[in-house]
């Protein structure tokens, strides 16, 4: 499998604090890769560097054959990286449908003049976009919630809406930042199955930050472990589970049983 994403020598420094230090990282096309590590290990910072929210202090990111280092977030999204946020960042006072439509921003063309004139072509585009948005909501398990304001959705539904919104950007690679945080075991199981479906049905590559080991071990092809901003292990879930540094730093002895 070719690498969809390749990051070389990624480093991020906030003043004197080195949040991510010299991390090499690849995501093969069509795989599900997980990034794990204790709190404060630099996982989210790493994510933010990949998506252009942070500019890396050093290092380069290649996505789908082109260098996207230091590109602004919207340009990264346009190239095909969709993401969710660890602490849900929906557009709270927009409806579910509108949230998803904002996600389609780069895939729609309506400019200022055409919007004012509302040309037939634009009307058709908006109609198609609405239809596609409704389908995405359906696919993400939010059927019938189209007109609900995002802030009125339940916590689990807000998480689902974030994924639907990220899918609306038509990503090749989907970055999920702790998607099951705060979900109950039932919801977590459903979500794990949902991620597997994303790969099989939507042909997506997924990069996951996750704390829940059942999710990580259940769906991942590869796991990378960060600790204090450094990569300490990488491999299949089984290899990582057996790695002593990982056990020491993060998993603890209990994880072996789980």
């Amino acid at each position, binding site marked *: 499998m070719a690498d969809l994403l390749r990051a070389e020598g990624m480093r991020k420094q906030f003043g004197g604090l080195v949040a991510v230090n010299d991390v090499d990282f690849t995501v093969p096309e069509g795989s599900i890769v997980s990034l794990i590590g204790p709190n404060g290990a630099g996982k989210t910072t790493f994510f933010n560097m990949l998506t252009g929210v942070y500019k890396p202090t050093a290092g380069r990111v290649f996505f789908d054959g082109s260098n996207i280092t230091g590109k602004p*977030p*919207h340009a990264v999204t346009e190239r095909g990286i969709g993401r969710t946020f660890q602490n849900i*960042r929906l557009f709270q006072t927009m409806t579910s449908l509108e949230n998803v*439509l904002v996600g389609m*921003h780069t895939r729609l063309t309506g400019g*200022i003049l055409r919007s004012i004139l509302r040309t037939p072509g634009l009307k058709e585009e908006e109609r198609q976009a609405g239809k596609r948005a409704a389908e995405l909501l359906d696919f993400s398990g939010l059927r019938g919630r189209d007109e609900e304001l995002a802030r009125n959705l339940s916590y689990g539904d807000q998480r689902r809406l974030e994924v639907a919104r990220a899918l609306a*950007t038509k990503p090749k690679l989907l970055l999920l930042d702790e998607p099951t945080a705060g979900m109950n075991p039932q919801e977590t199981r459903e979500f794990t199955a949902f991620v597997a479906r994303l790969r099989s049905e939507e042909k997506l590559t997924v990069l996951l930050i996750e704390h829940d080991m059942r999710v990580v071990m259940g769906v991942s092809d590869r796991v990378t472990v960060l600790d204090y901003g450094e990569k300490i292990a990488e491999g299949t879930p089984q290899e990582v589970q057996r790695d002593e540094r990982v056990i020491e730093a993060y998993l603890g002895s209990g994880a072996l049983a789980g």
Partner: protein
Amino acid sequence: MARPRLTRDTLWAALGTLGLDRSRWNAQDPIVRRATAVALWLAGGIVLIGAFGSFNWTVFAAAAIVFALIVPPYAQLPLGRFVLPLAVLTVAVTYPFYLDELFGWPIFGPFPAMNTMVVMMVFVMMALGLNVVVGYAGLLDLGYVAFYAVGAYTVGWFASDQFSQRDFRFGSVGVSPQVTGIHLSIWFCLVIAAIITAVIGVIIGLPTLRLRGDYLAIVTLGFGEIMPQIARNGNELFGTNFNLTGGTQGITPVDAPGFGSWINTNVGLPDNYLAPSSQTIGFLSDTVNVFFWSALVLVIFTVFCSVRLRDSRLGRAWIAIREDEVAAAAMGVPLMRTKTWAYATGAFFGGIAGAFFASYKSAVFPDDFFFNISVFILCMVILGGMGNIWGVILGACFLSYLDREGLANIGAWMNEKFSLTLDVPKYEFGIFGVILLVVMLFRPEGLIPNERRRAEFETGVHDQPLYDVEA
């Protein structure tokens, strides 16, 4: 909120002693309830006007119109959403014909005169323009007057004898053959002004829109201060003896609008607003009325664009940016470009408004473009309800009415009633401050709030900045 419910409970307790029961009232059809409530309010208003205003039959006509517009559930009908706008439009368009018949309010006195109405329309347009920037995209702009100024000066340059070393005319009306200078038709000038102002909006926007929140507000404040200074000192630009703005004297006279003699002969529209020929259609011969209707057309254009943009891809992106910049960027919304579009759009309408106003006043003075105008327009947007077109129109009408007529009327009433000699309009900004305070205390989302904004006021926007974001 607790406060209104308390009054309501007291009211019902009082009615209960008269044998009126609340539960029976609540069992009624909602339409009956609304009709009764509106009728009671209107009856109260009629009694007040009868007692303290100048009363005549038009009070009943006005009450009937209000009743017919508010009570029936038009929203449920097909095309029902057009009923209210069309009715308001009809009332506005025919205003000059029945103005003289109208009753007078208590304290406030008569309805606004036609020249006040023209100014009100200009401010409505400006407030709607600022609403795109502040209400939709959530960018606090304290220097909006800069765009108003650019629009006005553009007309000053292209439709007056300011550049008397040149002699060029195209479609201008009422310019004596002896006068030199550039004289374009005002209609062209409006377009040119709009485009130039939008370009200036982009130029100002590119460096400033990288900032957020308070920083943006302060930089826009700076630009709002720079523009009138350029205007005031632009009579000798950089010591080159080139007179750009006429300095403190401004530019005067500015040409009047008009459609020229060909349209006048063939269609009957006024050739020159200030001096229409005898071939003009009768009711279009009144100068101030045609200015009013022209302004109304511009307002309708602005409202139309505002609505279309709000419901478009760009409008969604603006609201997304207002809600959460980081998430919007991560969803593929280019922050700089989208914000700059908001700025340019707002500037566009501000420019048209300024240009039209300059032609109406037949003058451009630098003193018209100081900081207080920016604040004044911002107050209109906040008072009416940010993001809501009806609210902004109401806020702009009310405040500009107070500014032009209302305060003077109130002052006259007070001085007569209490034998005072106060000059009330002098306290204008103090009074506006009090109005704004009261509104912020009791209705922080504005008089007619936008649904979303109301929600934001309840929960607050969570925009946790991630500091490295660059667009």
